[in-house]
């Protein structure tokens, strides 16, 4: 098992903090590798399966490497009714991948998500932590230009 770089896991925390620690570890390491999850399990004295269970439940945590930028298009009802599908299609066209995939140059990971709280401005998406709302297919390529 490879060494986890120092500083990814803050050791003096209790198991109740698992979710927070997973989030922090992901922010630092980019994704939750088995090494990171194993070390977290050990340092909190909980099982690997428990760590994995929590890590795979939350859609904003990832156990697979992500691209530098993560696009999350909302697929919940209001966005659905406002034709989110046309946004999905224009992103697919723009970056050449489908939801669930990462571009070869690791620039983008593209996924669908449930409600991101921007229903009043549907259809909406997140890129990293930026909200982009009232989307139209025409806006997409301009928005994506800012993410390298």
């Amino acid at each position, binding site marked *: 098992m490879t060494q986890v770089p120092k500083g990814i896991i803050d050791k003096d925390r209790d198991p109740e903090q698992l979710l927070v620690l997973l989030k922090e570890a992901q922010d630092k390491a980019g994704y939750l590798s088995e090494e990171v*999850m194993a070390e977290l399990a050990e340092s909190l004295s909980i*099982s690997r399966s*428990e760590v*994995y*269970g929590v890590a795979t*439940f939350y859609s904003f945590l990832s156990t697979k490497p992500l691209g530098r930028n993560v696009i999350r298009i909302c697929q919940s009802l209001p966005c659905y009714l406002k034709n989110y599908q046309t946004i999905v299609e224009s992103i697919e066209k723009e970056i050449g991948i489908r939801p669930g995939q990462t571009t070869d140059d690791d620039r983008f990971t593209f996924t669908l998500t449930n409600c991101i709280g921007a229903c009043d401005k549907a259809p909406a998406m997140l890129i990293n932590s930026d909200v982009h709302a009232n989307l139209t297919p025409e806006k997409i390529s301009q928005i994506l230009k800012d993410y390298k």
Partner: protein
Amino acid sequence: MSSITIALNGSEVTAAEGKTILEVAQENGIDIPTFCSVEGLSPTGACRICVVEVEGSRTLVGSCHTPITQGMVIQTHSQKVIETRGVIMELLLTSHCGTCYMCEQANACKLRAIAADLDVGLPRFQSKKRFYQIEDISPYIVRDLTKCILCRKCVRACNEIAGKNVFATGYRGFDSKIVVDFDEVLDKKVCRDCGICIPHCPTGALSAPVGITEEKKATPLIIRS
């Protein structure tokens, strides 16, 4: 602990405060079906088959995790309860693999037994089903998660009785699955051979690796067409 008086299926019953409806019903010889509850372990309320009617409650309540309160009026087998349990049963079977005639557990399976008891045959609903590879490399336990109904009893039995924390629930929604480590095949590295989880499983998802004919003890099972 003080005692409480409730009305259970029309009769007045006294029981200790803090008990669940299920426990009081059992004490009084009333049979409520359960899949996920384990006596002595913390309730999860995962399967819903134990629902009962409580006067004044907007919905039916899970009897395994609802404590009795003074003056509670409970019906464990009203028409509404039986119908609801039937639908819950159908829903459980909808995403279950449904290959009972191929299952070694079939006539000793709690899922099937309760389905038969509720007069549920093939479910009316159609849905996706999941098929996993059988995990049989452990010398102590065979896991066939295709048959799992996610009652989480094995998780609690292993955590709370065996103290080994082998299992957890991974993923979410339809993808939910009882995982070992980082979703690895159960082998003897993580699991000691206590076998505690096996009899807790209400389906054929967990079994001991024995010759099939050794364990056939129950009577034939007839399933409504």
